[in-house]
């Protein structure tokens, strides 16, 4: 039996039954099921969603209505099919957000708005779909929080302050919010230790990093947000640039002469060899072209 068949058999016998079981048990928390889109689905939102869908979803789920999902197990299914359309928006949103192997988790890949756009696109294939009333700002029942980031040099700590905006526009400390602090790196955001819960004064204290490399001046970009999977808190976000990292002193990779460097910083011997070869060969070519004129003159 060849290797391929062995592999397929192994796959069928071991992984498949496990997947089949796990595929049937995708439980969505009740809280998440009731979540609705913050905006009304329009043609524009569906179009935005289509472009996101093509890049992130189509390779497995295929083109909606054409029933051409990838042939993998568990079957990804066509999102225009009843199996999908019978679910609530909140269920879809939760599944896209959290994922479940082999379905990727899109929490950190797509923003909330982008995820809702995708659902808007998928819903556009269902003529019977009636969108539930979006949670607009006016009817927003949760609490509105304002965040700020401060650095306490004495304690070497980063203080995130959460203040609740009351109905009469007053600010009071917000207690018990889960704050996530992250730092911007080359590729995306890196979470900064564990999330912290705000205390009575609305403070969450994070240890300042001692060995995190920043830019040339040691500046790092921080972002604080409230961890709020159920959407009970309005969009709360704060960003700050603090000079608390290690200054980046590494020399630029293109500062010295090297193969990978810019044209100006090519190794001298490479420039010399290339130029020498070109000058020699083309020198001879021009020499021959000139001597052709001589052939003509000899007869005259």
């Amino acid at each position, binding site marked *: 039996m060849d290797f391929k068949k062995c592999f397929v058999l192994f796959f069928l016998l071991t992984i498949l039954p496990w997947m089949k079981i796990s595929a049937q048990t995708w439980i969505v928390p009740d809280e998440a099921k009731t979540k609705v889109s913050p905006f009304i689905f329009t043609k524009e939102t569906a179009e935005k969603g289509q472009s996101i869908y093509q890049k992130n979803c189509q390779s497995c789920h295929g083109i909606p209505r054409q029933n051409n999902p990838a042939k993998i197990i568990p079957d990804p299914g066509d999102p225009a099919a009843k199996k999908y359309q019978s679910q609530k928006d909140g269920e879809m949103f939760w599944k896209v957000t959290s994922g479940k192997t082999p379905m990727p988790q899109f929490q950190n890949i797509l923003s909330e708005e982008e995820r809702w756009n995708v659902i808007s696109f998928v819903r556009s294939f269902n003529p019977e779909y009636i969108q539930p009333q979006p949670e607009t700002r006016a009817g927003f029942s949760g609490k509105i929080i304002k965040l700020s980031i401060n650095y306490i040099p004495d304690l070497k700590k980063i203080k995130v302050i959460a203040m609740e905006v009351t109905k009469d526009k007053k600010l009071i400390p917000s207690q018990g919010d889960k704050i996530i602090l992250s730092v911007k790196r080359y590729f995306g955001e890196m979470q900064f230790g564990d999330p912290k819960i705000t205390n009575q004064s609305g403070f969450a204290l994070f240890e300042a990093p001692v060995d995190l490399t920043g830019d040339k001046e040691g500046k790092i970009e921080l972002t604080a947000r409230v961890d709020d999977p159920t959407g009970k808190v309005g969009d709360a976000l704060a960003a700050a640039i603090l000079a608390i990292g290690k200054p980046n002193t590494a020399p630029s990779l293109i500062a010295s002469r090297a193969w990978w460097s810019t044209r100006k910083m*090519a*190794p001298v011997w490479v420039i010399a060899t290339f130029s020498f070869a070109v000058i020699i060969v083309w020198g001879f070519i021009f020499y021959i072209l000139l*001597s052709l004129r001589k*052939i003509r003159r000899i007869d005259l």
Partner: protein
Amino acid sequence: MAETIPSFESITHDLTRHINLSKGFKIWMTFLVIGLGVCLYAYYLQLKNGLGVAGIRDYISWGIYLSNFVFFVASSLIGMLISGVLGMIGVKWITPITRIAEIIAIAFSAIAGLVIVMDMGRPERLAYVFIYGRFQSPILWDVTVVTTYFVLSGLLYFLTLIPDLALTHHKIDKLPPVFGKAYKILSLNWANKPEQNAIINRSIRILLLLLIPSALAIHTVTSWLFALTLRPGWDSTIFGPYFVSGAFVAGSSAVIIAMYFFRKNYKLSEYLTDVHFNNMGKLLVLVSLVYLYFNVNEFLVPGYKLRRADAIHLQDLLAGHNALLFWTVQIGGLLFPVILLLFRKMRNPGPLMLISIAMLLGAWFKRFIIVIPTQEHPFLPIQHVPLNFKVYTPTLTEIAITFVSFFLVLIIITLLSKFFPVIPIYETAKEKGVATITIP
């Protein structure tokens, strides 16, 4: 065997009688021009709509345009082997073949550059390669050597043509008179004077000396476009000689096919004899065996070690979805023809031409096998993309654009062989021992 020395008149007559506007030529050219026109429309579509009309995508971004480019560069190398290496060693039988080899070299190297332009979404930016090109980049080296090799081949072709133009300009009576005049101008007043011949001979010697390293450079650099990456299937230290030896197989086949059709259509069987075909057949066996040797190295060495990435690549090539093409090319386009060519009868013009066609086709698809499968296996997994990003299939437009290059090459070969003597008259006369060479 006492061979009678033919008269200079009869040689000139034999070697210039094909220079005319025959009906066959007109039909053939009409076919080529119409074909070219149709395919150029495909190129217009690409210019208008962008490279998306081709099957190339983010992962497999080098498709048949690039494998075709490698094929064209490869085929052009034969000029160096025949005129350069064999000519300088002093091999006598190649005299009537040298110019054919040069025509192949000129046509293929000229179009090789164009094929690269076809692969550019913004062809008007070609000059940027020279303006902004980095000295460290094989791309700059590649355009430099391709241009140089084309100029060297063109000059070599022209220099050996000068005496022939002078000897025949009054005989071109079947073409409009302007051709005769052009011949006279191009002949540079050559009158077989020792000083003139001295200049020509010295220039040819210099050109041949330059031709050998530039030909090696052109194809080695082409191989480096691949081998200077870390990708399985390309990451090889023998890619230079592997490409060069493969180039001689493609070029020799192309020359044999051209010889066959020139001999038949231009009635040159007295000059391109069975001996020439037999010798070219033997040369083809030699270069094929060298290429076969490099093939064994190229696949056995990584196949023995089976580093993870190489294993995936080789599994696909030898037993996966590229296996059918791979084995067809290796056996049908290389191994089997070589075995056939070991028999004397197979080196007769007819069978040899058919075998050469198989080998030339094999050579084209071999470049496909070298260029495309590697890109199907990047080091990072391909994800979140539609199927046509993962598996490369050339589109009809892309194939039509590729045919632009074939039509152009055939047009150049046809024009050069039809309007100028395809066998060197002066050299042949000297070699056959003609006593008096009359200069008009």
